[in-house]
């Protein structure tokens, strides 16, 4: 038995969104449930078919219990491994294993939050870090600012490069009717926006919005029985090396440098094979770090790689095609949205933002302060 045995064995047969672009006066559970309903409808299934539950929350202590009770389902297996915003990409692996071993037949991954309308700030049960808290870092931006500052120092990355990431995300968002931020945005506007933690300004930060996402997974052997073209899990891997930024070994190298190669190895693929890329862009520096660590460019060259609109619509590489956490949505944790956008691209149902000939997608989740990294490669039927 080996990790590559899981290649192509799990299929995503339903996806659903909820609460986008905003959902005033609706609770997190209500938003999540809308996404679940949409995903099950997409798959042609009912709630009673769900017997595996994979979920997470930044405000509920026992989210599987709350979610199952609210939906009226009785899962045979649940997992709520909490590694921050990447958790839902992380759920692919236990869901695939549970399906493969017959522990469940229909796995549901879901998340929802009313963070934008409900409480406006990042609400979290995150425990204070004893040896960082006395210096009053702003969580999480100070940590990402320290990483950006180090990347700029070490490689000559410029603030303009960070701004390129924000502008590219906005241009994709302008093609997505569900994106929260769709106004025109220029490099000059990003450069002039209010500094929050040097070198990160307000427009280098992800949104704080409402939103929910859900995915329905089954064993691939029955994937063709569903209404929509199945999207297959070709490879996935996680890695985490630290919790707090002061314990990160090298602030210019994330654990994506480990999760990426392992996910590519499981899938039997390389970066050059990828048609569409969805990266967890909590801050503009993330996109640059992950393009490097996942092998789309060499370490230190991420700034040059994103220049001149190269990751924007019409550029060299399609990155964050829904507008990302920067311009589409970021309801506290963004992981489900990476997967859902990839599925929509691989099905060819992404409308104005559809990438031509999209057969292989890479999703990369980030959690904590560049802490947890989870890479997943998804493909359509031609990639099996």
């Amino acid at each position: 038995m080996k990790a590559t045995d899981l290649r192509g064995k799990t299929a995503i047969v339903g996806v659903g969104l909820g609460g986008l672009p905003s959902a005033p006066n609706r609770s997190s559970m209500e938003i999540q449930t809308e996404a679940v309903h949409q995903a099950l409808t997409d798959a042609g299934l009912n709630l009673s078919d769900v017997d595996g539950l994979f979920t997470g929350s930044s405000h509920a202590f026992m989210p599987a219990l709350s979610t199952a009770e609210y939906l009226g389902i009785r899962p045979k297996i649940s997992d709520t491994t909490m590694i921050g915003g990447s958790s839902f990409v992380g759920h692919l692996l236990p869901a695939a294993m549970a399906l493969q071993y017959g522990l469940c037949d229909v796995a549901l991954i879901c998340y929802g939050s009313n963070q934008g309308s409900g409480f406006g700030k990042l609400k979290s049960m995150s425990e204070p870090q004893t040896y960082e808290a006395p210096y009053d870092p702003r969580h999480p931006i100070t940590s990402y600012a320290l990483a950006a500052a180090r990347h700029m120092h070490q490689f000559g990355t410029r603030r303009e490069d960070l701004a390129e990431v924000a502008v590219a995300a906005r241009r994709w968002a302008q093609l997505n009717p569900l994106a929260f931020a769709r106004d025109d945005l220029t490099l000059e506007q990003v450069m002039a926006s209010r500094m929050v933690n040097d070198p990160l300004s307000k427009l280098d930060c992800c949104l704080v919005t409402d939103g929910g996402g859900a995915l329905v997974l089954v064993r691939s052997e029955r994937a063709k029985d569903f209404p929509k073209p199945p999207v297959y899990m070709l490879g996935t891997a996680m890695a985490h090396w630290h919790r707090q930024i002061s314990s990160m070994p090298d602030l210019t190298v994330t654990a994506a440098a480990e999760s990426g190669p392992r996910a590519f190895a499981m899938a039997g693929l390389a970066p050059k094979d990828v048609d569409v890329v969805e990266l967890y862009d909590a801050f503009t520096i993330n996109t640059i770090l992950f393009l490097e660590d996942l092998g789309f460019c060499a370490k230190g060259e991420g700034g040059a790689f994103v220049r001149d609109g190269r990751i924007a619509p019409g550029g060299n590489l399609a990155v964050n095609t829904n507008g990302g956490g920067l311009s589409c949505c970021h309801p506290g944790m963004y992981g489900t949205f990476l997967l859902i956008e990839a599925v929509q691209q691989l099905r060819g149902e992404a409308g104005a933002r559809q990438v031509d000939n999209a057969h292989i997608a890479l999703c990369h989740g980030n959690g904590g302060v560049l802490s947890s990294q989870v890479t997943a490669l998804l493909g359509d039927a031609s990639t099996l």
Partner: protein
Amino acid sequence: MTNAFSGSGPDAVFAAYLADGRFMLQQCDDCKKHVFYPRVLCSHCGSPKLTWQPASDQGTVYSTTVVRRKPEQGGDYNVALVDLSEGPRMMSRVDGLAPHEVMIGMDVRVKIIDEPGHGKLLVFMPTQGGGA
């Protein structure tokens, strides 16, 4: 070396030293590397044989940021990551110059101050030309 599994734990021991105005670091008897933050087991080799040693108090700024804050709330302040000469990295702050004047690569030394509302706090000062 103290017994790793009895008596006050490393967090409490560190805090007691700091309250007494001393910055102490754990060093592993087995692999000889230093550990910060304080732990029960060496994070390099897993050994429980950690011995408290006075820190050299010397370090280098690994990264730095200015946390922007309104003047009426106290104004901007620095948060830095400092690589101690013994090896471990810690979050801290560099005092003695304006927050934006703290530079990556700057040599700094420990200063233990009385922080209002907090007690003893371990911060850093520029080694050269940074004022008192």
